[in-house]
């Protein structure tokens, strides 16, 4: 399969003062794939996400996004975060950033913001179109919550949710923006093994729904079970890439990241 990748990164570099957090990184993601990004702490994985989503402007390099089924690509470099999201990229955060004073449902409804239109007049007049739109937002949000297993908590405040549920809510909120590429930053952190298994199932489901996924994770069991391909980073550089089985036995990866005798 040599279809054009939906995401194509070349030479991406990010400097913070003296620190080079990303060093000429190349990477691509194809439609329908689950790709994992692993590497030691401080390797630059989160920084990479931040560059993709417009939170940082990379020092150098190019980020090209090609919506599936299209041949025209757009550059994400220098776009504001909200425009990146509009283009079809959504993310979760390593340190959970939910709207804690809002309900679970409202969190997801916020995700619908960039795909809906009603504005001041719509809000005040509450005309038929607006009402229809609101209806759709609610229904769709409920459907997404149902998928991640939080529909019964829809009217809870987000801050009152257990940690694992908050992680899933982050995913739900990102899904609501209808991304074709979903970026997950350590979704299993702080989850117990049981919850991690549920997460495994959830991510597979999302993938079969047609979303491509780029995943940062330190839980090797999850990474090995989910990913089609794995990229390994260290000190801002790519040190390896390949199928899970290849990575598992790659000596460089073992040395820098996994350590001997992986129990995954």
């Amino acid at each position, binding site marked *: 399969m040599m279809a054009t990748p939906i995401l194509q990164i070349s030479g991406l570099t990010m400097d913070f003062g003296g620190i080079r957090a990303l060093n000429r990184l190349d990477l691509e993601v194809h439609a329908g794939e689950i790709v994992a990004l692993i590497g030691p702490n401080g390797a630059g994985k*989160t920084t990479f996400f931040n560059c993709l989503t417009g939170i940082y402007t990379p020092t150098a390099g190019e980020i090209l996004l090609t919506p599936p089924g299209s041949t025209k690509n757009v550059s994400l470099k220098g776009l504001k975060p909200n425009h990146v999201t509009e283009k079809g990229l959504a993310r979760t955060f*390593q340190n959970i950033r939910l709207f804690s004073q809002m309900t679970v449902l409202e969190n997801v409804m916020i995700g619908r913001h960039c795909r809906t239109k009603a504005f001041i007049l719509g809000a005040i007049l509450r005309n038929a179109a607006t009402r229809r739109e609101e209806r759709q937002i609610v229904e769709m949000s409920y459907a997404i919550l149902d998928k991640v297993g939080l529909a019964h908590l829809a009217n809870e405040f987000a801050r009152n949710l257990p940690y694992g549920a908050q992680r899933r809510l982050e995913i739900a909120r990102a899904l609501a923006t209808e991304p074709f590429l979903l970026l997950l930053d350590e979704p299993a952190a702080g989850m117990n093994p049981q919850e991690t298994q549920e997460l495994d199932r959830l991510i597979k489901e999302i993938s079969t729904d047609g979303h491509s996924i780029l995943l940062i994770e330190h839980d090797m069991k999850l990474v090995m079970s989910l990913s089609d391909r794995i990229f390994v980073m260290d000190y801002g550089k790519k040190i390896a890439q390949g199928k899970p089985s290849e990575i598992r036995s790659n000596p460089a990866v073992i040395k820098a990241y996994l350590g001997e005798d992986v129990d995954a």
Partner: protein
Amino acid sequence: MDYFIELFCSGLTRGAIYALIALGYTMVYGIIGLINFAHGEIYMIGAFTAFIVATVLSIYGFPLLAIVILAGFAAVIWSSAYGYTVEKIAYRPLRHAPRLSPLISAIGMSIFLQNYVLLAQTSNFLPFPELIPEFAFMEPIAHIVGSTDIVILITTAVIMLILTIVIKGTKVGKAMRATSQDRTMAMLVGINVNRIISATFIIGSALAAVGGLLIASHIGQINFYIGFLAGIKAFTAAVLGGIGSIPGAVLGGLVLGLTESFATGYVSSDYEDVFAFSLLVLILIFKPSGLLGKAETKKV
């Protein structure tokens, strides 16, 4: 050129005055993130205490040096006591409240203290005794800089240096910064957060008292309302310099003072405040966290 130097010196004095009050503002803001609108009133109370003590002593015939020292001492003691008490009554119960609640409490405190002094003393202006004599050796340049100006400038510089060293270098200073950044964690490393906050208020209020004494003796008069405008200006200076930063407060004060002075001198004093605030807006647009404030670290 002479005119320029004259305006420059005027601006410096004015700026140093703002800086003196801004230091306390910025410290309190730095530690609990509160725009302490009552800080101007603490300054006013310091000035009043100094006024009362100095006048009483001079009536009883004390020598000038003794008056200055005792009045300064009393001003510092009582201002600190007020600062401490205000924090305890009006802000401490609001530690876990929404962010803006202490702000309103501070505004209430400010109104209360103004009227308290109005009722306990008088609404009239009172003459503040001249505590800093005109030094004879200054006479040749007295038409440009006076003795009080010099004393104010030196005091501000010294206080800034000491404070910077304290905050950057000492344990207490580090504890202050730690408390301001993460109160829970500060407790977890063994910092008595309440004590550190009280200490901050006490230091800030003591500075306000020193400011009150010097400024009042520079202007020569006080009443219960002098804290309001001084407070607003000091707040502006603190923000201009980067709120929470000690050298920033001084720099902010000076920039503000100089701007007003030059605006008066070369344009019109009608619009000096307009210039001051426009400069503030302009600087914040290009440096959103003030001149010496740390840029926000945006790590997600």
